[in-house]
């Protein structure tokens, strides 16, 4: 594996040791180089000396000089013999002359030859030589003369020769001595040179020994390093081979170079199959995965960020796709750049994660289903309750004996209590579903606190408690926040305090905190029974009552404080309690609240009623009288709405469809327009839009959408069309009054949209007929009118139910409008089960979902049951 084998210094060697080794090796190299240089110099020196010597020996500047010198003696002797021979007559004169010439030539050589230059410089040689030359030159006339003269001169020549014998001998001796000396010197020189050469040789050997040692050392280091590298490579290889993750090494262009056993196991390729192939092509599932990898690599290169992991969809040899976690690192080995990819098959982990997510989702869904159920239940409970309460209100309009009036009062009180509980539960479930939103508008603290005191005054009276509120510190009345939630919390706290106090006092203190006053604290202080320390945390939990028997007596769900805590948090504040048993309790609410300059807030919040406030404060006084345009195609609905409005003294103008409504709005200025949504000819959206655009008399009059059940996305559409608010169908008198009151100028209640219509079908079995609603209907409408409307309902329903039951013309575009119309009518007559079925059909049609034929077939029976019950009740 190249990456492994080329890895830098073995980690085991340690940096220190490695550095020391390198330094040692550098020293070794330096020593080696020096030794080599010295050896080279020695060899050059030796060669120079030896070459000089060879040169000296190979060319001789003289021949055998000793022989030549000795020869002089011999030739002189021959000459003397020749002279004697000639005297005795044995030898011829020519022989004498030849021997003379030969000797003469020898002595001439001494005088002229280069070999004898050295000798000529010596007195011991030169003096006898001159004497001999003088003898020879003296004899020349005689030798070169006539034979007779020579013969006559022979005795003289013999004497002269005898006299020359000593110089000749001296000459020879001197020459021999000189050459002996010269040879001796020469030998000394050679010996010296040889000594020098021997010394140089010894030095050379020493240098070579040093060199050998240096090489040995370097070789040892190299071997040790090689062993380290080998060990490191072995370690790396074992890491790579035993890795659980796949390790794939590729070149720059993605060609696989290494493929470890884990990669083999995960991808199913044998190394010989994988090596040489292009990794992104065989290991990744598709171009998306490849693009993701490319962008990951770009990010890595660009940002130099932390080593990240990326999840890619990989594919193995058999084509199985699986999620893989991949980390890629770039490694530069010399000139070569490679990528090392670590790949982990995370399909098991993913599966586990998915299981976990599913389990969580299921748990959440079931939790939500429960919350939804609770919300639906509460909501559905409110409708009959409102029916009851509305009926009771209407009963108050007629004279009745005191006994009945008293009973009616009790019924009203119980109903309001029940409604309060239901509203609590609904608030809670809404909070849990995240549907509560905080308002942000201006209001007056004085008015709000007066309202709280007013609302709870009755309860205070029952317990003979004194109730008051006071400023502490600065009095800043105008504030910006959510007065409705704030009031609800305060009523809860005060109500709670009053419940546990008999014949004592409950005081509400209000204090702006901090210099700038962006925070406010409310303290509700009672002199009641107090709360034990161990219970003080518990009381803010849901459904928590300290004394169940008492709780039943005082009629609490135990939700009040829990809701208060949630609302406080919702507004960004905190809530808490300080208490001592028997001494009383102090509940505090601290929350951020902006205050505004005095005078910026108009009106009061006295009329504003939260769900809790409404119950205790009693029925709201109707506003008005108002001019109301009622746009509604369903005659039944229209009749009921008109009755409700007129009962409160309003003046009602009816329009049977959107077009008529638009026309009326153009001609006349109304105070408010109630707009049904689903209508023939022109629906509520279009009508509202046209009213806003056509510049008629009622162009800016508030429009309230009247709708049976609004999907959340539809509420946005109402508002886009110019309908600021909406009320739910079937109409509730109190809701209607609230909406009208909120719209009136100066009424700060304008704010949240009331409960959104719920689209989810009730999962509980609904009553066939809502008796409360029938009762309310009967109260509003005189009998002949009732029966007329009932006939209309029957005619409408017979046709449509038959059509739905048989499954005829389900694709027609008018079906949805018809279903909606009938659902509205059925709702008004309290036909809850039928209405629910129709609403579901309408929702399915709205959403383009297929209809359930099974359910459609059950419709006629349901209608038949409903109408039978309805006739019986209406006839009464």
């Amino acid at each position, binding site marked *: 594996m190249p990456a492994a084998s080329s890895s830098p210094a073995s980690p085991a060697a340690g940096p220190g040791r490695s550095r020391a080794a390198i330094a040692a090796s550098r020293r070794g190299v330096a020593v080696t180089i020096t030794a080599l240089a010295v050896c080279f110099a020695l060899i050059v020196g030796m060669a120079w000396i030896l070459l000089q010597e060879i040169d000296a020996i190979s060319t*001789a500047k*003289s021949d*055998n000089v000793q022989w030549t010198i000795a020869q002089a003696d011999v030739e002189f002797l021959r000459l003397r013999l020749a002279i004697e021979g000639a005297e005795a007559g044995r030898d011829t004169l020519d022989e004498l002359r030849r021997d003379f010439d030969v000797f003469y030539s020898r002595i001439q050589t001494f005088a002229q*030859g280069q070999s004898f230059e050295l000798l000529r410089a010596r007195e011991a040689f030169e003096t006898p030589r001159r004497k001999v030359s003088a003898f020879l030159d003296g004899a020349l006339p005689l030798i070169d003369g006539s034979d007779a003269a020579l013969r006559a001169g022979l005795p003289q020549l013999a004497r002269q020769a005898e006299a020359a014998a000593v110089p000749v001998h001296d000459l020879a001796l001197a020459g021999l001595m000189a050459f002996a000396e010269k040879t001796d010197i020469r030998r000394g020189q050679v010996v010296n040179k040889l000594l020098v050469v021997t010394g140089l040789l010894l030095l050379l050997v020493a240098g070579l020994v040093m060199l050998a040692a240096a090489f040995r050392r370097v070789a040892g280091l190299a071997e040790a390093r090689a062993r380290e590298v080998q060990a490191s490579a072995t370690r790396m290889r074992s890491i790579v081979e035993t890795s659980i993750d796949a390790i794939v090494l590729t070149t720059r262009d993605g060609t696989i170079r290494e493929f470890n056993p884990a990669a083999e196991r995960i991808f199913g390729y044998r190394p010989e199959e994988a090596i040489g192939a292009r990794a992104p092509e065989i290991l990744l599932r598709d171009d998306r995965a490849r693009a993701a990898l490319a962008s990951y690599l770009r990010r890595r290169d660009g940002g130099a960020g932390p080593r990240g992991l990326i999840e890619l969809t990989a594919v193995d040899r058999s084509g199985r796709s699986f999620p893989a976690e991949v980390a890629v690192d770039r490694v530069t080995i010399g000139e070569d750049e490679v990528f090392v990819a670590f790949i982990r098959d995370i399909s098991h982990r993913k599966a586990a994660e998915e299981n976990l997510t599913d389990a969580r989702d299921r748990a959440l869904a079931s939790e939500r289903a429960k919350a939804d159920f609770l919300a639906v239940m509460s909501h559905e409970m409110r409708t009959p309750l409102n029916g009851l309460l509305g009926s009771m209100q209407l009963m108050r309009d007629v004279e009745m004996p005191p006994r009945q009036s008293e009973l009616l009062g009790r019924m009203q009180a119980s109903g309001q209590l029940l409604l309060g509980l239901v509203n609590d539960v609904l608030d809670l479930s809404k909070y849990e579903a995240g549907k509560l939103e905080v308002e942000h508008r201006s209001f007056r603290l004085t008015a709000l606190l007066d309202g709280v005191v007013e609302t709870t005054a009755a309860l205070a009276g029952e317990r003979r408690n004194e109730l008051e509120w006071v400023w502490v510190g600065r009095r800043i009345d105008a504030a910006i926040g959510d007065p409705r939630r704030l009031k609800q919390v305060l009523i809860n706290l005060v109500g709670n305090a009053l419940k546990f106090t008999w014949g004592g006092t409950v005081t509400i203190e209000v204090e702006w905190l901090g210099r700038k006053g962006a925070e406010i604290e409310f303290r509700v202080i009672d002199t009641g029974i107090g709360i034990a320390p161990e219970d003080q945390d518990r009381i803010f939990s849901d459904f928590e009552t300290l004394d169940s028997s008492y709780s039943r007596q005082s009629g609490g769900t135990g939700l009040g404080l829990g809701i208060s805590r949630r609302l406080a948090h919702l507004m960004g504040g905190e809530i808490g309690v300080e208490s001592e048993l028997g001494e009383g309790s102090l509940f505090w609410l601290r929350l951020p609240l902006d205050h505004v300059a005095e005078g910026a807030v108009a009106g009061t919040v006295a009329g504003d009623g939260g769900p809790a406030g409404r119950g205790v404060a009693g029925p709201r006084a109707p506003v008005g009288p108002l001019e109301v345009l009622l746009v509604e195609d369903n005659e039944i609905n229209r009749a009921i709405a008109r009755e409700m409005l007129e009962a409160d003294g309003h003046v009602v103008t009816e329009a049977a469809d959107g077009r008529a409504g638009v026309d009326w709005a153009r001609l006349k200025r109304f105070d408010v327009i109630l707009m049904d949504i689903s209508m023939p000819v022109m629906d509520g959206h279009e009508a509202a839009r046209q009213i806003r655009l056509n510049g008629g008399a009622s162009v800016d009059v508030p429009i309230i959408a009247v709708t049976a059940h609004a999907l959340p996305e539809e509420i946005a559409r109402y508002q886009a069309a110019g309908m600021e608010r909406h009320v739910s169908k079937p109409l509730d008198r109190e809701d209607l009054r609230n909406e009208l009151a909120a719209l009136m100028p100066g009424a700060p209640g304008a704010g949240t949209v009331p409960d959104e219509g719920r689209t989810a079908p009730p999962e509980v079995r609904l009553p066939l007929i809502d008796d409360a609603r029938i009762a309310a209907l009967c109260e509003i409408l005189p009998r002949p009118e009732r029966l007329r409307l009932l006939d209309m309902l029957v005619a409408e329903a017979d046709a449509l139910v038959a059509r739905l039951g048989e499954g005829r013309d389900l694709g027609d575009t008018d079906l949805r409008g018809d279903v909606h119309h009938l659902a509205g009518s059925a709702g008004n007559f309290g036909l809850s089960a039928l209405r629910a079925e129709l609403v579901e059909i309408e929702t399915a049609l709205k959403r383009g979902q297929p209809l359930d034929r099974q359910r459609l077939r059950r419709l006629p029976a349901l209608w038949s049951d409903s109408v039978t019950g309805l006739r019986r009740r209406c006839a009464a």
Partner: protein
Amino acid sequence: MRRFLAALCLGLGLAATGLSGPARAADLPEPTGPVILVVSGKIGVTNGAGTARFDRAMLEGLGITKIRTSTIWTEGTPTFTGVSLHRLMEAVKADGTNLKAIALNDYTVEIPPEDWQKDAALIAFQRDGKDMSVRDKGPLWIIYPYDSAPRFQSELTYARSIWQLHRLRVE
């Protein structure tokens, strides 16, 4: 002059000895001047008595060669004039493996074939344009071109440089 006479006598003596030997193809002319060199032994050309006798004119007739070189026996750098030993050996069709050169004083050296089978040695008879007398190491002196190469500066070469040469024998 006496030198020449002596040489002549010597030559005549040798010639007489040669004449007494078996008759041979005498394709070398008889010398007309004093004989200064006698070649004997294994030779293919003679002028009587198994020897080839040369006078000065005959030697010159074989072709003149000049060598300018210093020697260890002389001063300066003289020019030697003579006939190449190689050419002389060719002229007498020498067919031996050794050559003995003998001087007047009976100094004898052996000259190996490589010195006379190619142009190396010169039998000089003039130094600086003048004939050499016996006193001047004449009349013939074997000279090598000492200055031309170190191999001619050896003691062996100096020993072969025989002067006062008057006989050669091919063996």
